[in-house]
């Protein structure tokens, strides 16, 4: 079994080879009891690329993100992050890889006993212990300013709206300057202007940091804006993967119906 040092070495070697996909999901199956959620999914995302994953509710999109971050284990198949197969890795070794990922949960999952600022500072406090208090505060303020919440620093999660909570969750996901961003419905519950601002932010991060992103969304407009590729799921399988134009020109009935109702 690889040690933590082995994983760090492999990650460095991988980063020097810019060709391989940063996230590679290969023939992954996942069931919960008798319910088959993912049925042989294969997807990949390269550095600087954004993949939007779309589909009806309950088709396993959020489960896919949970498998990538390692919160659930696939029944079979492999998930490679930076060339390292993460399936079955123990928590301390998985932690090394998770530090390079940022995850935005569907309902933000903010720590309700901490303020907005403390929520964003949480990963910094644990993983950037060399940072002084003022450096950490500056970073937190900068992150909250990027999501438009610089005036809500001392508020508690229960004092802000669901959309604002989502933006705090995004700021927290960006705290460690991740190389891979996983976003579960980032614009759900946001007004059109705020949604547009989040889309702009994701595009900016992609340009500046060459981040690889996987975005689960129902928002076709947002998907078209931020994603270089889209993957449409149905009954746990990828029906079609490609650009928005590829989807638009597809003859597959489910794809046409999905686009028609979007």
């Amino acid at each position, binding site marked *: 079994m690889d040690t933590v040092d082995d994983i760090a070495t492999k990650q460095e070697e991988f980063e020097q080879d810019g060709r391989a996909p940063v996230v590679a999901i290969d023939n992954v199956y996942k069931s919960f009891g008798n319910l088959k959620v993912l049925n042989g999914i294969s997807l990949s995302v390269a550095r600087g690329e954004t993949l939007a994953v779309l589909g009806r509710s309950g088709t396993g999109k959020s489960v896919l993100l949970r498998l990538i971050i390692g919160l659930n284990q696939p029944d079979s198949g492999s998930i490679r992050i930076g060339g390292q197969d993460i399936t079955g890795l123990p928590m301390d070794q998985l932690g090394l890889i*998770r530090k390079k990922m940022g*995850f935005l949960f569907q309902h933000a999952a903010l720590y309700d006993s901490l303020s907005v600022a403390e929520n964003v500072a949480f*990963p910094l406090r644990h993983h950037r212990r060399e940072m002084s208090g003022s450096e950490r505060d500056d970073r937190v303020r900068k992150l909250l300013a990027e999501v438009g919440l610089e005036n809500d620093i001392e508020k508690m999660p229960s004092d802000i709206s669901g959309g604002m909570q989502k933006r705090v969750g995004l700021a927290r996901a960006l705290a460690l300057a991740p190389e891979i961003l996983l976003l579960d419905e980032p614009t759900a519950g946001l007004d059109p202007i705020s949604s547009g601002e989040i889309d702009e932010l994701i595009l900016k991060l992609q340009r500046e940091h060459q981040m690889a992103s996987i975005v689960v969304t129902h928002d076709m407009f947002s998907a078209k804006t931020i994603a270089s590729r889209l993957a449409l799921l149905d009954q746990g399988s990828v029906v079609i993967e490609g650009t928005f134009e590829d989807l638009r020109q597809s003859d597959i009935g489910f794809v046409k119906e999905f686009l028609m109702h979007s």
Partner: protein
Amino acid sequence: MSDLALGESRDTRTQVQVQPAMPAPAAAHSIALLINRFFEWFGELGIFFWKVARAAVTPPFEGRELLRQLDEVGSKSLPLVALAGAAIGVVISLEARYSLSRFGAKSMFPATLVYSVIQVMGPVITGLVVSGRVGAGIGAELASMKVTEQIDAIEACAINPYRLLAATRIVACILMLPLLTIAADACGLLTGWFAQALVEPLSFHQFIESGFHGATFNAFLPPTFKTAVYGLIIGLIACFQGMRTRGGAEGVGRAATNSVVLASLFLILADVVLVKFILVVFP
């Protein structure tokens, strides 16, 4: 000639409904399921304990969170524990005086009160009070975090939730229970003496000298420090119940209730074993 057909009874004719007993195979299956769930629970608890123990002894250590939990478990439980100890002191004082008077052994009162409070009632009452307050609090807090994905968010941030959430709370309970027990004992002895002194003059100095006459550390330290085991039971069960919760608000309520009930039950069962252990090892 009987008007009843072969095999027919008067009872059948009058249509008395007799509920059939549960078929034996179904009853056996239900019992088997219960036994299975019983051992499954212990198995999962064992795995949870192993994960927490490993996380507790590997860096990085969560000192800040541990300090917060020491305050939460210790300082905030102190008033309640002190009150419970004080009440127990009065109860034992009243009961002991009555019983000892009947047998002409009033002079044994100080020793009776001291030994009863420090060796038996102080530790158990402290354990049960803390189980109720802290056990329910930890169970509900962690259950609420579980159903709102906050524990998943901690894990996604590459922070070990067994170390941050469970180990800190369990260590805090282990460290604080003996100290809280000492506080409960002190309050119990004080109020017990006071209740007696109201009826018959007895100076506090006389009471202490008489109560602790001939006593050794072996008589009082093991019963006090056995409460560290109570702390382990309370913290472990509350964290386990909280972190495996499912089912929204109902699940949170169930976790809080189960934390208190199971922790209290195991605490009392553990006391049986610990008392025997102490009697053998510290005669």
